[in-house]
């Protein structure tokens, strides 16, 4: 039985009070998406599926929602895959190999980790323009990946640091090259870290708004965050039922990924693999 500290109900009460506004927000989304009119969180209109009409038709001049969903999946999946792959290699090198400038590089990664990436928006814009990647999904994926890499490298370095040197020596004596050790020994041993980073970056990228909004113009490359935003800031009057439905539609995949990946995320915060 889990140990309950004294006054646990008081703690629970405080936590519940803090969480309440967020819960109310979610409640509003769920209720609002299935009702024609809502006062506060009280449904006053009729229950309806009308708000979900965006699933079958284009709303205004926006691209089909399925295009936006696919783009978001490609964006979040691409960022996740790239961050994990490149961070893993970089982190292994920093953790295990000695090369000139290693300490300097390590410091740089740490500084970049703390650096507000948004201040690089304009610079990134110019880079993408020069590369011809402006208004393309690949371009945003690259920018997002580079912004998330310092975090990924630091996280995975911690996991690689946890692998015993003797194990690596054993593999060397057994006849493996460093590249071979990286693939067949080190990577499988930090798998919890890789999964955690993959889930985390996927979720962050899924919710990312500023980068797609800045670097994507055409409707066919819209992500869901742009789609949702377009319903709030437009000339037409916001249809709150529709906004709620799209919002719920946007949240559901993220919730699914979180539910599947939460045990890896826990691993991430305890930062280490057990052998």
């Amino acid at each position, binding site marked *: 039985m889990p140990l309950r500290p004294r006054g646990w109900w008081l703690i629970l009460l405080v936590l519940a009070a803090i969480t309440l506004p967020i819960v109310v927000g979610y409640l509003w989304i769920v209720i609002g998406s299935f009702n024609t009119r809502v006062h506060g969180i009280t449904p006053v209109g009729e229950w309806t599926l009308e708000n979900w009409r965006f699933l079958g038709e284009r709303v205004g001049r926006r691209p089909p929602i399925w295009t936006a969903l696919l783009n978001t999946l490609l964006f979040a999946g691409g960022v996740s895959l790239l961050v994990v792959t490149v961070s893993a290699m970089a982190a292994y090198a920093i953790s295990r190999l000695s090369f000139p400038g290693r300490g300097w590089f390590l410091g740089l990664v740490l500084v970049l980790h703390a650096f507000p990436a948004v201040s690089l928006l304009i610079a990134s814009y110019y880079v993408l323009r020069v590369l011809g990647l402006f208004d393309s999904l690949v371009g945003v994926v690259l920018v997002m990946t580079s912004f998330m890499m310092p975090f990924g490298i630091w996280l995975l370095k911690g996991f690689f640091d946890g692998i015993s040197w003797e*194990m690596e020596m054993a593999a060397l004596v057994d*006849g493996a090259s460093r590249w071979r050790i990286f693939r067949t020994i080190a990577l499988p041993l930090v798998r919890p870290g890789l999964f955690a980073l993959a889930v985390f970056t996927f979720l962050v990228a899924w919710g990312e708004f500023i980068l797609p909004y800045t670097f994507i113009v055409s409707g066919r490359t819209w992500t869901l965050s742009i789609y949702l935003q377009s319903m709030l800031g437009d000339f037409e009057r916001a249809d709150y039922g529709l906004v709620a439905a799209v919002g719920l539609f946007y949240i559901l995949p993220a919730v699914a990924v979180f539910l599947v990946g939460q045990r890896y995320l826990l691993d991430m915060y305890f930062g280490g693999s057990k052998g």
Partner: protein
Amino acid sequence: MSADRRNGGAVPVSLRGLAKRFGSVQALKPLDLDIAGGELIAFLGPSGCGKTTTLLLIAGIYRADEGEIWFGDRRVDGLHPRDRDVGMVFQSYALYPHLTLFENIAFPLRLKKVPNDEVKRRVEHIAEVLGIAEQLHRRPSQVSGGQQQRAAIARAQVKEPSILLLDEPLSNLDAKIRLQARGEIRRLQKELGVTSILVTHDQSEALAMADRVAVFSDGQLRQFATPDELYARPADAFVASFVGFPPMNLFEGEVRGGEFLTDGLRVPVPRSWPEGRARLGIRPEHVRLEGDVEGEMVGFEPQGREFLVNVRVGARQLQVLTTARPPDTSTLRLSFPPDHLHLFDEEGARLDV
């Protein structure tokens, strides 16, 4: 190739002027050592003495700053570990936790691209020899420490290397299994006839298992000799005090007129001994509880078959190991048989007299 080795083709190892520095620390001072093919050698010494450094130099994990390493007529010090043909057992066993014992043992063979059916045959054979055939489908965390240790030996030995390196392979085992494992490793090594180097800080392990023992301290080889020789004729005061338990009694003093003199203790020595400052050593088991030297018993420990007695003579204390229960008086009479006295100069080097 491996068949040749079993027929007496075991590979000798030769270290010539081998040295290693870490930053400003000289971890290993230039070392010369010749190991015959098929021998089991122990590297013995306290931690930080250079024994593991030497082992890792031989394995190719560390790169030597100076010197050469020869396996038979093959110079290997410039080679990658995988090209040296060594097997190694680590203190922590360093098994790969995500692989079954079978895949752990098979790993070196897979890297050599040995065909699948031969991998299976060889892994099962070595597992049979080491008594872990039933555990092959398990992961390291699912078997006992003793079985993990055998799996580590199997992995080191499965590719039939020229040299087998063992880094404290027994120190993570329970005391009871450790004695048994000692015998097993020794038996296996003899059967395979593979040249082997065992690193240990446990002198009883080194003396019991090795054909010859290399004693290290402060990055320097102190003596390389058979266990008998180490015990009977330690090359210096460090070896004298490190090998043997309880340790040898050592006194600093002076040889003058057929006597060794130190703070109230006078030991008659042969007149032929050179006079001057020196160190005198005698093992606790060689001090006799009869004679002319008077001492005071200050401690007494029964040790089952023997008794360990602490005696104060003048300002000096020494230990005496005796099978006969010492008399029940606080005053003891001792003598130091000249045959069992060891003489070292002021720097600690043995003086042959």
